[in-house]
């Protein structure tokens, strides 16, 4: 698989067109809102090295929203509880990851297989997906010392015209806090809740029960109202890889704002 941070960012951006992760790294449309001063929640020592947990991130700045990262061994999912849209990766066979888009409000799933991902030119990096897309970024920043949480480190620096300050959890291998500043505009992601394994299992189990459709079969199901909406009104895969319509709004869900 191609390790391309740009692809990874763009893929994560499928959860939000105009906010959240996409906005974080495009960093070009933020209101000048100061970062929240709250401290991030620190993970318990018992989570050290765990691959079975979740982290809820709170976004502050021009865009407000919540994003959950769910981890269960080789599976990583990002879920926006606001619009009920999620993306669920499974790297059990690392060279052939499987990918599922979840639409919780409709209780539907779209399953993507290797050939589907290739036809859509979706190439992702497992480390980027599993690190909240911060693995490569961390290597570009300066280490500033230990952070406020146990087993945490602070990194800071400029990368691609954006100033970053990252509080990195060694035990979770994830950001606890990520602040960006671009042209005086500040935005911050902050871990607000550590989700226990049972909560992760509950969500993934629920999604597993949703009615699923292979991406390859969407075109043969134009009479299905849910899929017809995908075919005719949005779900633009090619140019943006996004679950949003041509007006830039998340499909079938409330906007993150």
């Amino acid at each position, binding site marked *: 698989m191609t390790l391309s941070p740009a692809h990874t960012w763009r893929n994560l951006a499928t959860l939000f067109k105009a906010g959240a992760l996409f906005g974080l790294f495009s960093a070009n449309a933020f209101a000048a809102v100061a970062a929240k001063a709250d401290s991030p929640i620190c993970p318990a020592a018992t989570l050290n090295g765990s691959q079975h947990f979740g982290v809820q991130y709170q976004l502050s700045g021009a865009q407000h929203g919540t994003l959950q990262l769910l981890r269960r061994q080789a599976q990583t999912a990002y879920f926006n509880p606001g619009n009920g849209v999620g993306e669920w990766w499974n790297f059990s*066979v690392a060279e052939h990851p499987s990918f599922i888009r979840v639409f919780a409000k409709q209780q539907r799933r779209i*399953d993507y297989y290797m*050939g589907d991902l290739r036809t*859509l030119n979706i190439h992702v990096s497992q480390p980027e997906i599993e690190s909240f897309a911060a693995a490569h970024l961390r290597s570009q920043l300066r280490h500033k010392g230990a952070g406020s949480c146990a087993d945490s480190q602070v990194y800071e620096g400029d990368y691609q015209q954006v100033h970053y300050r990252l509080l990195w959890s060694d035990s979770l291998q994830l950001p606890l806090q990520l602040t960006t500043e671009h042209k005086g505009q500040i935005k911050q992601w902050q871990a607000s809740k550590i989700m226990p394994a049972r909560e992760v299992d509950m969500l993934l189990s629920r999604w597993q029960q949703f009615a699923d459709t292979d991406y*390859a079969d969407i075109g*043969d199901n134009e009479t299905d109202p849910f899929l017809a909406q995908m075919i005719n009104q949005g779900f633009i895969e*090619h140019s943006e890889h996004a679950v949003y319509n041509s007006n830039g709004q998340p499909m079938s869900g409330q906007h993150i704002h």
Partner: protein
Amino acid sequence: MKTLPHVLAALTAAVAAALVSQTANAAVLPDYQTQSSWFTAGADAVAAKVAQARNTGSTKNVILFVGDGMGVSTLTAARIYQGQAAGHTGEENRLSFETFPYSALSKTYSVNQQTPDSAPTMTAMVTGVKTEDGMLSVSSDSIRGNCLSSKGNELKTALELAEDLGKSTGIISTARLTHATPAATYAHTPERNWEADSNMTTEAINNGCHDIAYQLVMDAPGNGLEVALGGGRSYFLPNTVTDGEGATGRRADGNDLTAAWTENYSNAAYVWNQEQFDAVDTTTTDHLLGLFQSSHMQYEADRADDVGGEPSLAEMTSKAIDLLAKNDQGYFLMVEGGRIDHAHHAGNASRALQDTVALSDAVKAAMDKVDLSDTLIIVTADHSHTFTIAGYPARGNPILGLVHAPEDTTIAQDPTLANDGLPYTTLGYANGPGAKNGARADLSAVDTTDVEFLQQAQVPLSSETHAAEDVAIYATGPGAYLFQGSVEQNVIFHVMNQAAALGGTKY
């Protein structure tokens, strides 16, 4: 009887005219015309047609190849693609089945839609009756998605008729074996999406409808299918089972239909990867089930990168014929290139063309195995796509490339520009994911021949759609001559029925 002398006279005149045509032409046409390679090749083609005797006898075997979504433009582009891959200009190339002596155009509309899906089209081909979209081998008196309405409206298929006659039967697809095209040969259901029991409604279960995978193994006609090779493994496995490639089954009823296959039949085998497939001894195996993916098999372009390994469509066809041909009563085999359609839906011409070439290779493999004096081979499509071959590219211009016009005896270095000042590809779609809102992308620096490239499209849709124009039928072997002109798609069944004396109707 009164017309016979007239017909004979006409035939005699035609034959005589053809035989002397080159001589006659030589008298009235200049040498540079009659000695042109185009001229002599054309004359040879006509002479071959004149000399060809119709095989009006019965056929023992029938092989029906279906390229899902393989419209005429797909065939043209695929033949050029294959020819260019072999180092030629491409246009003069022929796919294996384009050498067949007989052809016709097939009208694909369904009872309720101008542009159909694969369910009613395959139903038409294997039952002789058109039905409504989404329904498999039940008549249009049924209501889609309503089990009760389909009861008593089941349409008997060519595969079932063959089983009744003691022939062996087989299905092969690079899509799921429960997908519409293969399913229409053996299943009867008012909803193509009822592929596993977990996909069914309460109404369907309460009224005794069976899911498609179940019908393949547990409700099979005659002594059961002898060959079933393709994708869709998860539809045959319980949802408590993880398969050899890490995918979970989806059956809620607990049935392991792969185990049932080997239990129900003697000398039966179930395989799920290339190694197991290669090890199958067709002399000792009488019922072969191969499920090589949890869902659809890989595109041909990606097949070599599969986790467990997958046989090609040609390999599956060849092995199937070895097994089926053991029956002296003959066989009926359906082979589908199922992923041509999916690649088109994705707006990805390269994969669609590679899968079309794979189907051509499978036909070639069949032709190398069978005796055409007792085997009818038909190659057709269920429907078309909005796929176009446009512009005025030079002869030999890369079929996946930008349009470059001819320039003297070469190809212009610079691409032809459209009114927006941008170059454009030869291949494109009328709709699909390759469309953008706003200005068209500049492809000047894009490698449009890359397998991942999505052709540009006019109307933005997330999934490119089927198209309604006629598709082609190619045929060879006994009864093939019955394909002439423009026919309704359901005529295909009647030709098979007539040629193989399946007993569905007397003509």
